[in-house]
Every structure is written in C-alpha cells, then in structure tokens.
C-alpha cells in the first residue's frame, strides 16, 4: 500500500517542477528537453505504478509472531539414570541458576527469553535463560542458555555445554539433542509441544559423556510459549536467521527412537498424522451408523454419533488437525475423514461429527485481487498526465509570438 502513493503523486511533482521551469522563460530547446523529460518520466511512473500493482498483489506479509513468554521443561537428570538403580543419579547434584528452577521430579524449567513462532509454517525458535549444572563427584557439566528450534526433522535442542569434554577454549552452543517434533497444541495466544522425545546428537552425547555412560535418549522436553497478538517482521527475521543457521554437524544418529517418547502418539516423525481424522477410519464410522442415536433436542434432532466420543484413542499431546502448523508435512490429504452419510431418510436432518483434515490448506482461500486499486490509480494518473501533456503541446505553438 505504501508504494501506491508514489506513482500517484509522481506526475504532479513533475508538473509542478515543470511549471516552475516554465515560469522562467526557457529557450525552445530547453523547453523541448523539459517536455521530453516530462513525457519519459510520466511513462516511467506509469510503469512503476504497474509494477507496484503487481507487487502489491503478491506482497509478502510477515506471519511470525514474537514469543512473549513461556517455559522449557527438560528432564535433564534423566541422563544420569534413575535414582536407586545404582547409577550416578544417586550421587549427582543438580544446581540451577540464572532464572532456571528445579522441579520436584528432577526436571529443570527454563524461562523463555525470546523467540518467534510462525503459525503459518509451524516453525519456531525459542531461546531460554538460565543454566543447570550437573555434578557427579568431581565431574561437572553445565548446560546454559538452551534454545529450541522446531522445524520438522531439523528440530533440535541447542545449548551451551561446558565441561571436561569441552574441546574448544570458549563454550559455543551445540546441538545437544534432536527433537521429535510433534504437532503443537494451540490455544488462543499460546503454543505448546508436550514431551518431545530427545535423542542426543554425537556432540551432545560427547559433552554429557563424563556424567553418564548411556547415550541416545535424553529426558523428554516440553515447551510452551505465549506469542504476541499480531505478526511481527522482526520475529520473521529472527526465525529466518535461526533456520538458516546450519547446525554444526548433522549427525547420523539423528533418527528418533520411538521407545524413548513417552507420548504414545504415532507421531515420532515430523509429520504426525492428524489425530482426529485418523480415528475416523472405516471401523468407527461403520459403528456410527448402527449405533443408537441419542436425540436430546427435539428441534434439531441431533443424533450425535458415538464414534466421536469413542475416538480419543490418540495421544493427548497431538492436537487435532486444526493447527495451522501443517506445512512442514504438506502431504496430500491422507484420508477424507468426512462421513458422507447425509442420510436422514424421513427428512430429519442428522448431525454427525466431522473434522477438517490437516495439511489441507495453509492459508484461507484467496478471494480477491489487490491490483485493481493501484491499476485504476495508475490509469487515472496516466490520463491526467496525458491531458496535461497534450495541453502543453498545444500551447507551445504560440510561443512564436515572443520572437
């Protein structure tokens, strides 16, 4: 929208300029040059307006939102093993600082410091404050300033890990673990991912090695953030930067172990199947038609199919398909979950449960064109410019009186 003012205004500025020039009695040659410049400028502005119109119709709106708060809960002590099984867990000491807090079950909660979440793509980057120091006998490893990146298979937990195994002189953030990104749970203004299975990367395992002999699965990671009301270009930039930053070494052990995931969802891959619609498989819908219908209200005679209530066999963490974060898994719609059984035989309209599919649309349908207004403005500007130019052309002939 901002660019439209320029092409609309441009010709007038040029005319003003020309009139001022004309006030000074310019020579014919000079005036000819001025007019040529005028005509060319007018054409250029027309072209600019057209280009502006095209650009306006394909404008990119920032969709990412700033993270305004939230927490990261990481059962970091799981790397030490279970207390009481003779592992290092019994001897370990866990200390937190910088805003992190220790929960009763041994997990550590970090407060969110900043970040961005894009509801259009489902990608997120959240940075957290605080650090946790694990001490087993004399060996100490500290994990500071975690950062979570949610981007399909590239989802990762980064942190600055310092300890005996630190190879570099200065601590740098490394990818500690790969995360099995599940579908986020969305409520108004907040996004959360529950119990993401974390698998240590080679680097992460090496960093934590002094504490534990077990590698592989780290404690599950849960995070929830609140996001700003509206999209923010800064957040978009931050997210783009975080996504562009290549992880140091994409290790071969990036595959995710389903066993480590406490969420029994079928969604260890980055593209979880929509939970609500998967349950709409043929068998429940078949039972729906044979089941006795409860019709509480006489007016609507709504027969709520029990398949709706019987279906929540999916994990609680995977939210139903309404989440807009389905673009990383933009697969063709797996199953039309809709029951096409619109069968009120005697005219009693039926009411059945249905859900929209995931991965179906990332945006609402485009129902209008943005170029009409700029195009019309450009057209009017061209006509006005043309009329003025013609008038000037007529006037020029009588200048001979002056000589």
């Amino acid at each position, binding site marked *: 929208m901002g660019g439209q003012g320029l092409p609309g205004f441009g010709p007038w500025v040029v005319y003003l300029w020309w009139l001022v020039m004309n006030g000074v009695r310019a020579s014919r040659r000079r005036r000819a040059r001025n007019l040529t410049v005028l005509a060319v400028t007018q054409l250029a502005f027309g072209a600019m307006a057209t280009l502006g119109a095209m650009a306006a119709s394909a404008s990119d709106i920032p969709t990412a939102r700033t993270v305004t708060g939230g927490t990261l809960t990481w059962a970091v002590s799981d790397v030490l093993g279970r207390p009481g099984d003779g592992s290092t867990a019994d001897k370990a000491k866990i200390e937190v600082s910088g805003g992190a807090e220790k929960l009763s079950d041994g997990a550590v909660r970090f407060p969110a410091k900043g970040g961005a979440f894009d509801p259009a793509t489902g990608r997120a980057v959240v940075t957290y404050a605080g650090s946790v120091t694990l001490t087993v006998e004399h060996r100490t490893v500290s994990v500071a300033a975690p950062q979570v990146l949610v981007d399909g298979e590239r989802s990762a937990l980064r942190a600055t890990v310092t300890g005996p195994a630190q190879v570099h002189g200065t601590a740098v953030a490394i990818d500690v673990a790969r995360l099995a990104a599940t579908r986020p749970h*969305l409520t108004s203004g907040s996004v959360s991912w529950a119990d993401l299975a974390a698998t240590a990367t080679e680097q992460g395992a090496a960093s934590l090695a002094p504490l534990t002999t077990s590698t592989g699965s780290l404690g599950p990671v849960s995070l929830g953030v609140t996001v700003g009301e509206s999209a923010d270009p800064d957040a978009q930039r931050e997210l783009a930067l975080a996504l562009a930053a290549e992880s140091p070494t994409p290790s071969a052990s990036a595959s995710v172990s389903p066993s480590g995931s406490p969420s029994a969802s079928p969604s260890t891959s980055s593209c979880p199947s929509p939970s609500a619609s998967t349950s709409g498989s043929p068998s429940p819908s078949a039972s729906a038609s044979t089941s006795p219908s409860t019709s509480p209200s006489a007016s609507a005679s709504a027969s709520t199919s029990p398949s709706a209530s019987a279906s929540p066999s999916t994990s609680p963490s995977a939210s139903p398909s309404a989440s807009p974060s389905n673009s990383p898994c933009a697969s063709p719609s797996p199953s039309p979950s809709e029951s*096409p059984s619109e*069968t009120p035989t005697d005219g009693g309209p*039926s009411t059945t449960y249905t859900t*929209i599919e995931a991965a*179906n*649309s990332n945006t609402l349908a485009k129902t209008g064109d*943005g170029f*009409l207004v700029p195009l019309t403005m450009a057209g009017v500007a061209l006509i006005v410019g043309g009329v003025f130019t013609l008038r000037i052309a007529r006037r*020029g002939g009588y200048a001979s009186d002056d000589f």
Partner: protein
Amino acid sequence: MVADQRATTGVVDDEFWEPPWRPVVRGAGEILITLGLLFCLFAAYEFYGRSWRIEAEQDQVDSVLDRQWKEPGSAVPVDGQPIARVHIPKLHRKWAVVEGVTTGDLRKGPGHYPGTARPGQVGNMAIAGHRIPSVFWDIDRLRDGDAIVAETKTGWYVYRVVGLRKVLPTQVEVIAPDPFHPGARPRTPMLTLTTCNPKLQNWQRLVVFAELDRAQARSQGRPAELEEAR
C-alpha cells in the same frame, strides 16, 4: 488538429510556427491517455466482468444442483460440483456452493473448504467467496443474530451470526472444527464465511461466524427466515 494546421501551412511561417518537439510531446500525451484508458477499462472489466461471469456460472451450477437433488441417493462431494445452497436473507442473496476453494472453484461462486463439515454437522462448515458484488461483497453488513440458511437435499439449516473477525490469510484456525477453540473437539455445528478484506484488497480475510439455530426438514417447507426477507 494541430497536425492539420502544420500540413496546410506547409512552410514555416511566423503565425503558425510549430516547434519541432511538439509532435513528440503530443504523441507522448496521446499514448499516455490511451494507456490510462486501457488500464481503467481493464480494471473495470476485472471488477464488473468477473462479477458478471460468476453470476452466469451460478445459473448453471444452480441447475446442476437441482438436477442432483432429484436423483436418489446422497452424492459424495466432487470438487467443483455444487453441494448445497446458502441463503442470506438480510442481503437478499443466495448461492449454490461448490466443493473446493481453488481459483477455478471460486470462479463458479462460493466454495466449500474440502474436509470441513457439511450443513448441519457438528463442526465447522467453512465457505470462501470472492469479495465482489455478486458474491460476498457486503457480508460485512451482517450482524449478530442475522440468519444464514443452508439448504441441502434433505433439509434447511438456519444458522445465526455470532461474530465477525478480520484475520490474516494464514490464520486458518478460523475454519477449525471449533473456530473459537482451535484444537478442541467441536460441540456445535458452525458455519463460517471467509472473504477478502478490505474490499478490493486481499491482505486480510473477513470472517463471519454463525452457529446452528435450528434445522427443519424439506417437507416442512421453507424456513420462516427466508419468507420474511421477501
């Protein structure tokens, strides 16, 4: 006109001397006016012409729908084929809604987001339509309590508007089964209209939410809401 003068005078004389740059400027001016007119005419065609084309398509789709409803059995929605009729008595409008929201589908009239609920189902029946005079041009005039009536082969479903919202195109939660609690299990049958906002622009979407008020069988005749509007 001026060119004629020069042609008749032939030789340059003082009275009608024409500077040599004048034909150039005149030509430029004429080109500018022509281009401007073309731009304006094209814009007008895009606006009124599309509106007119959709009206023509609607006539055709409407008759297809009538034919479908005469046949026995219930039709599975096919992309681009009509699935229901939607009336907005306050605006004195009705459309045959086609399945699908691609550009091609929306060329025929309002489109039903695939996979969303069908009329009367618990969930959200989401419909997209162009913001042009023959479609959803003035749905911003709808207010809470206004009726939106969906007509199917078997019955009438009277929805009442419960809210309007302006959102970004990416906020697809408005067509979630429960648009007010995205991710939650829907409990009521909803109907949602989406169109571009503001008028003649497309950087926002205007969304109208409506909730099912009552349903009545076809055998009970047209709902009173439609008769009132007549």
